[in-house]
Every structure is written in C-alpha cells, then in structure tokens.
C-alpha cells in the first residue's frame, strides 16, 4: 500500500513538474517581477509580469523556430496592466523567453533570460 502511494505521489509530482513551464523571479530596484516561457502544440509563449506595485512597465520577447529558422519576436509591452504575454502561433519549437522591467523609480533591468 505504501509503495503504491509512493509511486502515485511520485507520478503526481512528475506530472505537475512537466506541465509547469520554466519560471523565474527576479528584481530590479524596487520592482519585482517574474517570467516564464512555454511551448505547447505549436504555440510559443513568453510571459513577463510584475509581482508588486514597484514595477512601471514590463517587456517580453520569445525565441521560436518555424521552418527551421529561429526568430526573435518583437517585444511585447505593457504599462497599465502588470504583465504581458508574447504568443506566437504556428511555431515549430521554442527555446527561451527574455524579460525586462522598468521600476517606478526609473531603474531598468537588463534583459533576463528564462529557459
């Protein structure tokens, strides 16, 4: 019984890990934000979001492949909303997203790469 429960638990954990895209969190000045990128079906996504009120704006871009060519998307941008998602439909693959945020005090982060 215990062994079955252990197997079930392990399977559950693995399943959860597999469906959760790569995620990261980081800060610049008083601005904290997070990001993730994912690839599912033929859709590549990069999410960039603020996790507190210290963020003024966020940008995100996604690296994706289509027809054997790797492309960078134009950065998405948000100002009023605290996140943006760059969504590319019809991609063959995706390898990473890049994220950047501007704090309310004007501090601008370098592009942060999440795999």
């Amino acid at each position: 019984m215990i062994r079955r429960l252990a197997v079930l638990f392990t399977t559950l954990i693995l399943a959860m890990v597999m469906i959760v895209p790569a995620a990261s969190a980081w800060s610049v000045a008083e601005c904290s934000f997070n990001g993730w990128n994912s690839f599912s079906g033929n859709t590549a996504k990069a999410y960039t979001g603020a996790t507190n009120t210290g963020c003024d704006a966020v940008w995100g871009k996604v690296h994706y492949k289509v027809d054997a060519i790797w492309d960078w998307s134009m950065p998405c941008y948000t100002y009023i909303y605290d996140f943006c998602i760059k969504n590319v439909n019809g991609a063959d693959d995706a390898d990473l997203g890049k994220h950047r945020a501007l704090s309310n005090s004007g501090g601008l982060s370098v592009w942060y790469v999440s795999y």
Partner: protein
Amino acid sequence: MKSLIVGVVLAVAVASCGGSATNSHSASLSSLLDRVGDQMPASQLSALRDLELTYDEYERAFHLAVQCMSDQGLEVRGPNSENNGRYLTYSFSSTDSEADSQCFEEHLSYVHRVWVESQIPTGAEADRVREEYADCVHSVGLDPPTDGDLAILERFVGESLRDPTWGNNAALDACIRQYSNAIFSNDPWHLSSGKPWSATRKPRSASESRQPGKDVCPISANFLTDLAQLHTLTVRHELTTQGGRFRCFDDSQSCSPP
C-alpha cells in the same frame, strides 16, 4: 480613411482627466515635452509632439524601424498584424536577441508605447469590452471572475494560458486576439497574409468611443517622465548626446542638431 486619430491616453489618464487635474496636467506637460523632446529621436518626436498619434504615424514608425533593421543587414519580417490588426509587429532572425534594439529605440520605442496605451479602453467602453471579453472567455469553457476590472480579467486569461490545455486553445486565442491588450498573438511570418491591417476590429480612434475633453487626455506628465527616464537609460542616440534640440522633424530628411 486610414488616418485614425488616436487620442494619446496614457497611464493615469482616467484618474487625472478633467477639471483642475487637466490644467495642472497640461502645465507640467509643456515643460516635460521640452525635456523629452531633447532626448527623443527626431522621427518619433515628429509623431508625438502634437500629443496625438495617428495610425499612419504608427505604421510609418514601423516601416522606418523595419527598414532600419534591414539596412543593418538584419533579416527582419514585418510589419505584420497581431490581435486582429490592432497592433503591428515584426520578428527577426539573429543569434543576438538585441539585434533590433538600436532601430527599435530609434523609431519605435516611444511610438509603440503610446500606441499600446491608446488602445486600452477606458470608462464606459472599458466596462463594455470587459463584459464582451468575459463572455467570450466563458463561451470557450473558462470561468472568468464576475467582478473586477478589465485588468483583472486580463490577468485571469493570462494565468489560464499557463495551463497547456488552454495555452494552445484556438477558441481562447480568438478571444485574446479580439479583446486583449496585454496578450499579443501573432502568427509566424510565413503564415501571415502580408496585409498587416486585415483587421476585423479596427484600431481604436479618439472619435470612436471617447468624448474629447472628457476622458481623453494628452500625454500624461508621469508617462513622459517615465519615457524620459527609459530613454535616458536605454537609448544612446548620437544626436542627443551633442546637446542640441532637433531642428528637423521630418522623417524624410536627414536630421542634425543645430
């Protein structure tokens, strides 16, 4: 008519519009514009200095940026449309993810931000869009929050996308294309029609849904401050470092400091 006048409504527009707020707003705006004007690349300044951004100006900025990238040898595709034609986009092939940065900062950084802000509905229109957006999301099988503003709904949809089940759902993507101003969906270049504005929903114009003088504000003081800070931090524009105000505001000309 393609020259859709877009009231440049920015971050604090709703809160600061009207009454004395507008007066103080305009007063600080004037001085701020002087400061930003010194720092802003000429082509973008020419589009924004009258505190209005037309679709033609937005599109032109994209063409200039894409041409700039192409001139630098970058393999760039665009402008193409995204979100049912409410926005333009480009993509590029390079091992350097920032290969587009110089041209983006030169021709698009301010204009794109202003355009994005101008497309976000406010007031009664925001309520209407929220209701339609929520209905659309509900119709595809999600259970969006019944209260809260448009931003909360956008957040809900964004979080839903993290679930692979919904992250690749064509019906939900259709809702996003129609209504979202935080989630940007575009097809790869080879799937694009090549007609960037084959839109089912035209970009918002100032006259479409807003009452001039009521909920349309000029560029906000805070936003311009932010722009100035951002630009100072990110853009190394050779002309501005020479300390002069641009005399030329025409993109077709070669601009130089006095």
